[in-house]
């Protein structure tokens, strides 16, 4: 059973880490979580980013957050990536598989996955 005692043990392990981490992130991944996003499948996409950032050990550098309706409902699930010193990248019609690729190639590798961006979708 995942008991409260186990939670207390996690707390002890995390205490020092939290202090070090504060204010150091350089990348922000924002997932649209309004009705339009949720209906289109944003929940598993968000969770793929949260899990992926943790598994890849990127938590000190990358923040995953949620936002409301961005106004381009037909392109949901929409994910925006903000990297320090770079222009915002908007990914559209996201899936768990696409999220994993964005995490690997863009967030980790620094190379935008052009085929998933809104620009690519609009020119298609």
């Amino acid at each position: 059973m995942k008991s409260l005692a186990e939670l207390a043990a996690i707390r002890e392990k995390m205490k020092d880490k939290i202090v070090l981490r504060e204010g150091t992130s350089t990348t922000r991944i924002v997932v649209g979580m309004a009705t339009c996003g949720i209906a289109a499948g944003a929940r598993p996409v968000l969770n793929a980013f949260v899990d992926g950032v943790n598994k890849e050990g990127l938590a000190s550098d990358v923040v995953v957050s949620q936002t409301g309706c961005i106004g381009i409902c037909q392109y949901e699930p929409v994910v925006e990536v903000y990297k320090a010193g770079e222009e915002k990248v908007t990914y559209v019609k996201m899936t768990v598989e696409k999220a994993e690729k964005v995490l690997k190639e863009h967030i980790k590798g620094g190379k935008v996955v052009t085929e998933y961006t809104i620009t690519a979708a609009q020119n298609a």
Partner: protein
Amino acid sequence: MKELSLNVLDIAMNSVKAKATLICIYITEDEELLKMEIIDNGCGMTAEFLRGVIDPFCTTRTTRKVGLGIPLLKLAAEQTGGEVSITSKHESEYPEEHGTHVSAIFYKKHIDFTPMGDIISTVTTLIQGSPDIDFEFLHTSNTFEVSLDTREVREVLGPEIPLSEPEILLWIADNLSEQYKNI
């Protein structure tokens, strides 16, 4: 919505927007019925605003920000023969105890009943997005009870560790899935 748990997520997002500090999600079921309640202590809605929320086609543009969430829940409930009811106390009239109570009843045996789906994911998504809000989750039937109260989690963690930390979200997901497994 493909899962009722997505409706839960969507409706609870309204509570987040209403600046609630406590959001209760109660699911109660037996063989026939499933009742879903989302109760918050947010700013609430005025009687006029509430009318617009329930009937989206009579609404004016100022009520647009609530959008399609309630109509979609209403559709999901009514297509099983169930119903949605909403009561709300707006902070302007009830400065002490304001908030909104959304309640939906579903007939589980109806062919158009939408399955619950991944409710654990809905709970962790809410906590990830709003780590400062408290959530009380309670799913009961005549044979089981699954519960989570972030106030208890917070008490163990202390003020310095946010609930949105991946390790904590993982513990919450594991805790809930173990409770469901033991049913």
